[in-house]
């Protein structure tokens, strides 16, 4: 039987935790460009945002149903670094398997303007991009999943 030392066990436990990639304003632009050819739904959320937490499992289900048709869901957490672990855990619990990011903007104002100039940064916020990487629709505030699905299906 293999016995792991305490530090090794600790390191193993850390490695088992899903990690969120950092994303800033330039990274966001690259992300949009990299998904060209797919319909992309970007969900800005945070662990402290109750409607965001309600929405995430529904979005995971939506992506699961429509992934074969070309939908990709990307999540961007607006949490502070000290909430990263909780954010990663919640994504796992919600069934999110796609790319997951933690917002680490060099300049918050610039980041938000990069996503959508009219957006204040209020959560929850979803941004729908077509296969050419163009922002087609924005959903700020809790939105019924049927409304989101309807908008997505028009692009698939």
């Amino acid at each position, binding site marked *: 039987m293999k016995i792991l030392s305490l530090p090794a066990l600790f390191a193993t436990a850390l490695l088992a935790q899903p990690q969120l990639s950092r994303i800033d304003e330039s990274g966001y632009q690259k992300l949009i460009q990299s998904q060209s050819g797919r319909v992309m739904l970007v969900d800005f959320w945070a662990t402290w945002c109750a409607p965001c937490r309600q929405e995430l499992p529904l979005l995971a289900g939506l992506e699961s149903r429509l992934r074969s048709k070309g939908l990709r869901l990307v999540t961007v957490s607006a949490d502070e670094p000290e909430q990263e672990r909780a954010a990663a855990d919640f994504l796992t619990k919600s069934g999110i398997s796609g790319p997951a990011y933690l917002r680490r903007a060099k300049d918050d*104002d610039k980041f938000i303007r990069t996503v959508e100039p*009219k957006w204040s940064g209020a959560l929850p916020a979803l941004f*729908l991009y077509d296969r050419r990487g*163009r922002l*087609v629709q924005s959903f700020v505030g809790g939105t019924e999943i049927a409304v989101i699905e309807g908008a997505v299906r*028009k692009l698939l």
Partner: protein
Amino acid sequence: MGRAGLGLAVLWSAAGFGQEFHLGARAAEFKLTDPRGVTAAVDPAPGNATVVLFISAVCPMSNDYVIRINDLYRDYSSRGVRFLVVNSNQNEEQAQVDDHARRAGFLFPVYRDPNNAAADRFGAQSTPEAFLLDGGGIVRYHGRIDDARNPARVKQRSLRLAIDAVLEGREVAAPETKAFGCVIKRARKTT
């Protein structure tokens, strides 16, 4: 109008982004309801400056600013700055708002905003979100209180910088900022 344009137009109009009292505009009278339930018109230009601050009783982001809001009030009300702290969320009951104000130890009343009419005129989207009017009722600042939820990580105290500038008769260096917060829960429009 193409599909993209229509989608955005529907979203932004539904959320009340008309923003009549935008940066640089002169605010007109607007109505607020005080904690006793009395609704009255508010003069936007009664003194040195007015801070209109939209908050929530339940939004964790807004609640993380409770101490900072009290500090702002304490530091600037004595210098003639009026604070109108407003809860426009239609899903928060009056008792909830009153209880929150008591627990937070607010040094000022929290006003209600029936049918989020004031939030619509200011174009407020989230909590916490601040507007600063000068003595002439002109909107001189719109945006966040500061740039970090965690007070230890704050680099720019945006609202304080704006108030200082207005009180000293200077231009506000960063008159419009953005911030992550909770969406203001508005009344459903039936039109």
